[in-house]
């Protein structure tokens, strides 16, 4: 009875909001959240359409788009082609970034600490317990490492950042691959959980001796120190848009069904080893075509006009050839252009 009242009420109020503006909802990955929110703000001024993007983690993005509760889902963990087909989804990349280990050690600044995949694996397994462990010292001659216990900080929610990070560990640390594996949520052998990228950054900021992993923008803006990670060429590049772009440029985009592409451990001296694209998920058959069109209009605008904003926020825009390919793929979406 009162559901009807609520709906009637809603219709009455809906009349109040301007009729020409479409509002649509996206949810998922927290890695691109600040980019989508900044784009949304500019796009609302440019078009009047309003995007409400909620950062609830990649796992949430996948689940909510499958449940039709949002107009698009966002995930840093690409779905495999068979998963896409089963759920009737289309997947395309929207931006590129990287995952960065961050730490909190008094007296040691950003970029001064060097780590490798094997070392990260052992630390996150809880096998290396203190910062002055000889294996950490071996990679960092000249650093004064304190005898603090290492507090591992991971994600409490399902997340694409976790998927990229654990996939990288599984590729570079055989022990990790055997004991834990790679997914958007894993059974952590050690440490504490923070909600979202910024929850992890906040915990790292608050805890002496903490080591966590966050998306690059959070490492840059969250006032935490980043570590350098050894790449496939044995170098220690700084995590920055150029080194993420280096990882993206070599990827076999055109040949991957469903755009299932990972950018981990790519070759090249300048390549950041834990790079990845962030993906958008939409239903092939739109329940509400006008919403689907609004989503595509938004990303069309973002591809055309959003690169400057993306660069300002330290995301890597897609290469032009990839954008053209994605625009082609949109034709498969019912109610699209």
């Amino acid at each position: 009875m009162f559901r009807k009242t609520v709906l009637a009420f809603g219709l009455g109020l809906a009349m109040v909001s301007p009729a020409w503006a479409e509002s649509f909802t996206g949810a998922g990955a927290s890695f691109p959240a600040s980019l989508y929110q900044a784009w949304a703000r500019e796009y609302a001024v440019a078009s009047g359409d309003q995007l409400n993007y909620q950062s609830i983690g990649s796992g949430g993005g996948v689940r909510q788009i499958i449940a039709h509760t949002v107009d698009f889902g966002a995930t840093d963990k690409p779905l495999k082609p068979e998963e896409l087909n089963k759920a009737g989804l289309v997947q395309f990349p929207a931006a590129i970034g990287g995952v960065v280990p961050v730490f909190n050690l008094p007296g040691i600044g950003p970029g001064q600490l060097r780590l490798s995949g094997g070392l990260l694996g052992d630390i996150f397994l809880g096998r290396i317990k203190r910062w002055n462990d000889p294996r950490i010292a071996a990679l960092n001659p000249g650093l004064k490492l304190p005898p603090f216990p290492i507090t591992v900080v991971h994600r409490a929610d399902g997340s694409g950042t976790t998927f990229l990070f654990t996939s990288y560990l599984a590729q570079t640390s055989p022990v990790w691959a055997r004991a834990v594996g790679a997914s958007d949520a894993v059974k952590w052998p050690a440490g504490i959980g923070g909600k979202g990228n910024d929850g992890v950054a906040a915990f790292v900021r608050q805890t002496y001796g903490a080591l966590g992993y966050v998306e690059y923008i959070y490492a840059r803006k969250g006032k935490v120190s980043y570590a350098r990670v050894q790449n496939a060429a044995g170098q220690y590049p700084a995590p920055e848009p150029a080194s993420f772009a280096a990882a993206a440029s070599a990827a076999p985009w055109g040949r991957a069904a469903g755009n299932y592409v990972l950018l981990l451990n790519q070759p090249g001296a300048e390549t950041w080893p834990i790079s990845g694209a962030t993906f958008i998920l939409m239903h092939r058959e739109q329940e509400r075509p006008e919403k689907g069109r609004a989503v595509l209009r938004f990303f069309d605008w973002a591809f055309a006009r959003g690169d400057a904003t993306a660069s300002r926020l330290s995301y890597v825009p897609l290469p032009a050839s990839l954008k053209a390919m994605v625009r082609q793929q949109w034709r498969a979406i019912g109610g699209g252009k």
Partner: protein
Amino acid sequence: MKFAPRMFDRHTRRKLVNYGFVGLTMAATAVAVIALLLILWSLVANGLDGIGLHIFTMDQPPPEMPGGLRNAILGSLEMCAIGMVIAVVIGILAGTWLAEYGEGKRIAEVVRFLNDVLLSAPSILIGLFVYEILVRPLHGFSAGAGAVALAFVATPVVTRTTEDILRLQSNQLREAGMAIGAGKSYVIRAIIWRASRPGLVTGALLGFARISGETAPLLFTSLGNPNLSFALTQPMGALPTTIYQFALSAFDDWRALAWVGALLIAITVLAANIIGRALARGSHHS
């Protein structure tokens, strides 16, 4: 023969023990009062600087951009208002039934008990329930679902206070009404409700105080929305959900806004509480 001094000793000891005990009870009270002052102080210290007109005129910003909390404040107000309308209608009617019609019925005992169960049920479970009955079937997070979840949280509060207040009204009132030939329902509406008005308002205010700070029921229902929106079919921002998002973030400007929001919510809730209690006291004296 040291009987007297020992008596005296024991007497002194008893007095000392008693002083110690009084001291302990004072200390316990001091702990509660100090905790309250500390919490209020940290709210004021961290939130007061950020309060300005922009909080009420601008929507929540992406990180490191200027903004306020307008969308969250208005969203909270709208969902709480709708939730309260539902809760007041159902709560007052149900409370009236318990007080006026439920006398001696088994089923009234059951309803009363279940209302108490609902009153003490963790609010996050209400959120789960509304997700299952509204969000999932209707394919979308929405302000309407948020308002319904808040209504479920507030209704038992209103029901309970309504029943308690109506029971306070003397039977002479009821009999007097009946004596002039009015029907029972008319007596309840025209006489009993009118006489109990301050108490009913108190119940509603307590319900409002309870839901205006609720976060858990909104997490899976109204979700949140950085844009200003009034549509009940769309997700909607709310102060508690925005505070939750901002407080746990790594951005200083977001954290500052979270403190501002916490201060606003605390002021609202405390004001509703104080007004409600004052009304209740006033009605007892009258």
